[in-house]
């Protein structure tokens, strides 16, 4: 057997070494990213995956930029400034001069207006982007540098406009019928035309790799790297191994255990950044048929009672959830706006902050009429049997299943019986829409503007994204108020009040704010800045700052003054704390673990042979 393996190796090794040797020649500086999913579409009107958003950011520009500190809008995009009319119905943006597409054509206000108008005209474009242009009636470009948005009513979410600006002179040939399958990929070796800092030279939707080349003439200045390559790794273990070997320079979404394992690796720096979002236990607070108003499904009566749900908030040990279900990578949660967005966030008052306090939970339940019988079993206010709560977990997420296991225990401590069903999320979606559940575990990503997150819990979203079937008129009124507010302070007040209502009504019990693990070869690369700064992530951010800022580690210096970037050296001291700056050592791992494992396998392989000989020997003796 071993001989056979050796033979195969022997036969292939000469082949193997040839291409490796052939590519030794002068190479461009290439930054290689390992990611989970294929790009679903390079067409910015079609793609949905986070990976695609990252690629468009390299290929195109946006009207608005987002700050590294807290993702607030800033004039670092195509618009060098903007203003709003008194009544909030007219937004005027001034497009900067000197921006060109990669084919040399200038980018003007007309391209911006064209992009937005395609979305307003409906179809596939509208499916993806129309929520950012709510109440926008008309987009015009009165001159080359002015874009005017006319609204039917004020829209406080503007200028959140993360829509890639496409070249009109290319896309006018792609009509409404064609756009829904238009791939926007390089054809006959010609890169895709865009105004962004990189050009897509290789890549297809659903393909394993994508390659981008830097543009020398980008308006913010040429990137410090020549190429960015994305490689899809369907297995996180393989991606991490590729990072250790040096085949890739960055791995996204590294699980906490792998982050720990990578910590001692020479030349690799890891990061646990805030990912702006939350996970929650959601309740069926009253599923209804939205047309007739009749109740549907079979949700438990007790969960229609806000006092009951709020009491359960004290029965959840959020720290234990973070420690076990999240392996420590995250923070306990309370409000639906995560701490990342502290300007929008409402903090619960100290006396009502959810702590793990089963006694208080018990007391609140009893006060609300849910008493226990002599056997410790919880009863309904009318003294009848409580029955069983049906909890649902998403089977593809270990975190989800673990959280529900813990929740079941805590419910049992309160004398409440429950059962858990784990199912795939697309099946769970059906169960939720039918109202045939009592509670489930899921989560949401929260954008830099909380408007969309807040909208999911309005009555308008019943039978759609409002998965808790929550409907509260006061909440809806505040939603409209903040959505159309002209004054920022007023808007923030309304947003905070909405979070407060949700906290006490408790359709969701927020369990945790997750964190995203990342790992990068700091022996080769430096000057990546986290977003939000500090505490955020290095890549898959809002905007392309890091692709412009990053450079080979030996050229790091002070990263042009961004001294808290990874690998930045300020006045001869290492400001990043990574200790990796300047090390140019790209050897692969040589820990003792791997050889041991390899030896183990050889032993296993030989085991069959050894056993055979022994059995043969004993058979011979018997004869």
């Amino acid at each position: 057997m071993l001989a056979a393996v050796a033979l195969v190796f022997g036969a292939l090794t000469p082949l193997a070494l040839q291409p490796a040797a052939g590519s030794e020649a002068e190479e461009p500086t290439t930054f290689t990213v390992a990611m989970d999913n294929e790009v679903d579409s390079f067409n910015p009107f079609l793609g949905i995956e986070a990976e695609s958003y990252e690629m468009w950011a390299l290929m195109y520009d946006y009207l608005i930029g987002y700050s590294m500190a807290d993702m607030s809008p800033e004039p670092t995009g195509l618009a060098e400034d903007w203003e709003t009319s008194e009544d909030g119905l007219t937004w005027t943006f001034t497009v900067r001069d000197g921006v060109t597409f990669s084919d040399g054509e200038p980018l003007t206000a007309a391209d911006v207006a064209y992009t937005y108008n395609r979305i307003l005209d409906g179809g596939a474009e509208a499916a993806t982007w129309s929520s950012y242009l709510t109440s926008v009636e008309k987009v015009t470009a009165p001159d080359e540098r002015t874009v005017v948005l006319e609204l039917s009513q004020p829209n406080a979410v503007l200028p959140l406009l993360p829509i890639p600006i496409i070249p009109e002179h290319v896309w006018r040939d792609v009509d409404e019928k064609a756009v829904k399958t238009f791939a926007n990929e390089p054809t006959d070796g010609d890169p895709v035309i865009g105004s962004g800092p990189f050009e897509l030279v290789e890549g297809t939707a659903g393909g394993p790799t994508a390659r981008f080349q830097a543009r020398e003439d980008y308006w913010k200045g040429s990137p410090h790297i020549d190429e960015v390559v994305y490689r899809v790794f369907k297995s996180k273990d393989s991606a991490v191994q590729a990072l250790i070997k040096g085949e890739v320079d960055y791995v996204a979404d590294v699980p906490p255990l792998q982050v720990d394992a990578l910590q001692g690796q020479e030349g690799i720096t890891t990061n646990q950044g805030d990912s702006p979002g939350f996970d929650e236990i959601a309740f069926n607070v009253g599923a209804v048929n939205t047309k007739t108003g009749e109740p549907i499904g079979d949700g438990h009566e007790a969960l229609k009672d806000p006092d009951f749900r709020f009491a359960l908030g004290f029965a959840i040990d959020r720290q234990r959830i973070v420690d076990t279900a999240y392996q420590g990578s995250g923070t306990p949660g309370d409000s639906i706006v995560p701490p990342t967005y502290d300007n929008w966030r409402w903090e619960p008052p100290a006396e009502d902050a959810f702590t793990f306090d089963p006694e208080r939970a018990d007391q609140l339940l009893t006060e609300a009429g849910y008493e226990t019988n002599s056997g410790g079993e919880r009863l309904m206010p009318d003294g009848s049997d409580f029955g069983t709560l049906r909890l649902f977990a998403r089977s593809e997420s270990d975190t989800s299943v673990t959280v529900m296991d813990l929740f079941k225990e805590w419910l049992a401590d309160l004398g409440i019986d429950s059962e858990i069903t784990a199912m795939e999320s697309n099946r769970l979606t059906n169960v939720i829409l039918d109202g045939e559940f009592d509670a489930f575990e899921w989560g949401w990503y929260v954008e830099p503007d909380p408007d969309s997150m807040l909208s999911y819990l309005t009555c308008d979203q019943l039978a759609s994204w409002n998965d808790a079937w929550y409907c509260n008129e006061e909440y809806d009124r505040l939603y409209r108020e903040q959505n159309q507010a002209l004054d920022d302070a007023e808007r923030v007040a309304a947003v905070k009040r909405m979070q407060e209502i949700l906290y006490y009504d408790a359709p969701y019990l927020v369990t945790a704010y997750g964190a995203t693990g990342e790992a990068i070869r700091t022996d080769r690369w430096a000057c990546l800045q986290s977003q939000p700064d500090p505490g955020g992530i290095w890549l898959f951010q809002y905007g392309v700052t890091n692709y412009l800022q990053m450079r080979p580690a030996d050229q790091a210096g002070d990263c042009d003054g961004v001294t808290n970037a990874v690998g930045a050296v300020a006045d001869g001291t290492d400001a990043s704390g990574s200790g990796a700056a300047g090390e140019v050592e790209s050897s692969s791992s040589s820990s003792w673990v791997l050889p041991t494992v390899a030896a183990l396998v050889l032993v296993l392989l030989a085991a069959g042979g050894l056993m055979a000989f022994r059995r043969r020997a004993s058979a011979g003796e018997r004869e």
Partner: protein
Amino acid sequence: MSATLTSSPGAATGSAPAARQSYARYVGGRLLGALGSLAFVLVVNFFLFRVLPGDPARTLGRGRFRTEEQLEQFRATYGLTEPLPQQFVTFLQNTLTGDLGISLRYRVPVADLILDRLWPTLLLVGTSMLLATVIGVYLGMISAWNRGRPVDRVWTNSTLTLYSMPEWWLGLLLIATVAVGAGPIPGIFPTGGLNSVDVDPGTFDYVLDTAWHLTLPVITLTLAYLADYALIMRSSLLDELGEDYLVTARAKGLRDIAVRRHHAVPNALLPTTTLVALNLGFVVSGAITIETIFSIPGLGLLATEALSIPDYWVLQGTFLVASAAVILANLLANLLYGVLDPRVRT
């Protein structure tokens, strides 16, 4: 899609023209059967995936399609709002003209996606199966011929050990050792993927590069498949060993190796042929585990990922291609058997 090969005793009699005629009828019957299965699969395919739970617009659009209007826009654009019977008619018309629909996730024609993914899968699974067949049959032959001797025990136990190892574990182990490099072992192979990014397709370097990338996954898969062929070959050769004609052959004074090669092995190859032909059909279904571990963009991964959306047209397309391949392989096996073993032609 049953692979049973019925045999009936005493069918090998009759004159030559009659035999030819009966073979023609046999072929005709098998062809009709295959076409029938294909038509059946076509219909079942459509309805099977429609009863899958989930709404593609919601699975894909969570956090992106904010409003009911956006979800509706998406559904309308990609034909999900049409009534089911209408969708079915469109599906039949399209499939017959070779149009497999548009992927809901990738928004490109499913036929293009499948063509892109077919090649890696064929290379990976086809090569592994070929290697496993050749090596496995040889090992099985050696084992049977030396039944009970050390060489038999070594090969049989080794292939069984490999067979019982999880594929992903074996794959990861190879990555951790010969791809990353460990101790004295240099990391000579890539950790995953099918090609380097900077090699031009169509050049000889590209071929070498692909071979270099496929080495580890092919080794893993070959090792996993090996026992299948080795054991079948071993047992069918063992069945032949006691036969009278071998005694006759030896009595004629033939050398041992000639007896094995010209008398025993040809007869023992029949069951192996069936296995090979049947497995051939499964080549295009891909090898999901290995495709995942080594990040090889194959059909197996495409279908698995489409299932969670559910991306109806991708599922229909991949299953149609996979079923067609299995049906075709079955047909070939049947026809081949008709030639190899005249008794089955009834």
